[in-house]
């Protein structure tokens, strides 16, 4: 049997394999490095970084749910400047492929972030987290409407320059995710990241109040995998040429394969890393084995396979 071509491409950039960390689930990378060599996975996607330092929300910030969890971190982070000075150089030095996730409270902020990334070397792509509340529009999430989604992507594209691939990360909490995908594709993204967390809530029946300090939170983990597969399948069906970074409840090579068959070109591992720090590494190995077992010589042949011949 010939060796597996396990590499994948998003825009102009190639990654040695399709398993990435998910934004916000690998902190700055160093925390996981004790458990496996980060260079073993396709890329580290950083937590979403904002212009200014953010304290984030009060605790409790999490609640476990059946086969999943809610989180409400509130995008705690050091702000883009400290981030670029402190976190990125370490990753670059380790020769880890880095995808920087950015988040803004206004269209302008996304532009500012993109401009700051312009000059940074060693970055492989920018993931634009548009599932953030737009403070200029009653806190409505950008990703919920085509027009605000487009505005953000255009601001990023104008400011980022060069070849850096732009990946738009969409929210599943919309009536028609294909419509949002179409909007950002038309605005010029090179790839999509599907899906961000679902909006959820847990009420503590002891205190009889919402469990999270922020009341609502984002639902992630295996519980949401069927929603992720559906979103990826629908979007790949409509736009087969746009690479998708799939995520949502992937905890094994089998799960990663499911998302790839649905149409993902790469797969991010989030919540699973909380239960198993080596999750991304294990999943990469399991996936390679599964692909080979099924007779694939090239990852590309598996991408979107579930669409063919039905």
């Amino acid at each position: 049997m010939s060796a597996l071509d396990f590499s994948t491409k998003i825009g102009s950039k190639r990654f040695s394999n399709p398993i990435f960390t998910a934004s916000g689930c690998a902190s700055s990378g160093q925390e996981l490095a004790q458990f496996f060599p980060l260079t073993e996975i396709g890329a580290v996607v950083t937590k979403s970084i904002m212009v200014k330092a953010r304290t984030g929300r009060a605790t409790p910030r999490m609640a476990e749910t059946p086969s999943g969890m809610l989180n409400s971190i509130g995008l705690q982070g050091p702000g883009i400047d400290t981030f670029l000075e402190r976190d990125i150089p370490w990753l670059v030095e380790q020769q880890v492929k880095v995808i920087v996730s950015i988040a803004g409270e206004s269209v302008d902020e996304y532009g500012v972030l993109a401009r700051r990334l312009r000059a940074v070397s060693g970055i492989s792509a920018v993931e634009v987290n548009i599932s953030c509340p737009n403070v200029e529009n009653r806190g409505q999430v950008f990703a919920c409407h085509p027009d605000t989604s487009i505005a953000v992507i255009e601001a990023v594209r104008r400011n980022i320059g060069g070849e850096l691939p732009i990946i738009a990360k969409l929210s599943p909490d919309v009536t028609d995710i294909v419509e949002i995908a179409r909007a950002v594709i038309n605005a010029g993204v090179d790839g999509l990241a599907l899906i961000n967390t679902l909006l959820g809530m847990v009420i503590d029946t002891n205190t009889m109040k919402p469990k999270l300090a922020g009341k609502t939170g984002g639902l992630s983990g295996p519980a949401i995998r069927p929603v992720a597969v559906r979103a990826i399948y629908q979007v790949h069906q409509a736009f087969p040429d746009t690479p998708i970074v799939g995520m949502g409840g992937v905890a094994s090579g089998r799960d990663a394969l499911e998302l790839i068959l649905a149409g993902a070109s790469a797969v991010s591992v989030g919540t699973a890393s909380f239960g198993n720090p080596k999750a991304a590494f294990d999943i990469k190995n399991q996936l390679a084995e599964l692909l080979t077992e099924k007779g694939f010589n090239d990852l590309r042949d598996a991408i979107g396979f579930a669409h063919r011949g039905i």
Partner: protein
Amino acid sequence: MSAKINQFATQMLAEVISNKKVGPYHHMVFAVGEMASHVKPGNFVAISVGGEQSSLVLRRAFAIYRALDKGPMGGSIELVVAPHGQGSRWLCQRAVGDLVDFIGPLGTAFGIPTVNANAMLIGGGYGSAPLFALAELLKNKGCRVDMVLGASTATKIYAPLEGKRSVSSLTLTTDDGSTGIHGQISEAIPRLIREFGTEVIYSCGPMGMLAAVAKIAEEFNLVHQCAVEESMACGIGVCMTCVIPVKNEDGIKMIRSCIDGPVMDGSQVIWDRKTVMDAL
């Protein structure tokens, strides 16, 4: 960043060597081999719960009660577990011979004074667990160790015989007066500090108790190291759910209790929730 994060942490399947019910708690011993040699008092382990088909996706954190580097079964780690919710109940149901998925040792350890000092160790409920290993260490350094353990009622005080060897005095308090001093543990502390000439305080237990102890430590101007307990999703620093608000030039900063804790400087923590909410 100075030290490597999670420097000594490894993941392994640990065999249950013993599981004994002690009052409302389970004292459990696990064979962990090498892992034991890296444990310091205050460290914790993160454990997978619920088995293969589990709907519980997150690990549970447990303070290490004791670690034996070279026991009869090789390295071992001992825990004191309260069967509280689904995960801890599952753990308490494990039988001798079962394998449990461990990550450890994790988190910061109690700092040891460089000179001899009179130390007071204050524990609430199963919060006493990490204090016995600390007591031994302090005693070996020549410190005076006064231990004060409190709980709502007598059975909930975890104070095994072998643990008491290292302490100069042991005071018990219960909210219901069923043993020791009647009342909340914090009420008894000021008098005991004076009596024992306490110079440094270590505490572990519910956040409310830690806050009360922190206030007393401030009044007496004593160093206070406390082991905090905040809900953790990962235990290794990647999720940012376990944060504790601490003082900072600009007001408030959220630090991870799994990496920058669980042992923290009590004087740095912002204990008052209203202050935190107002600052956010």
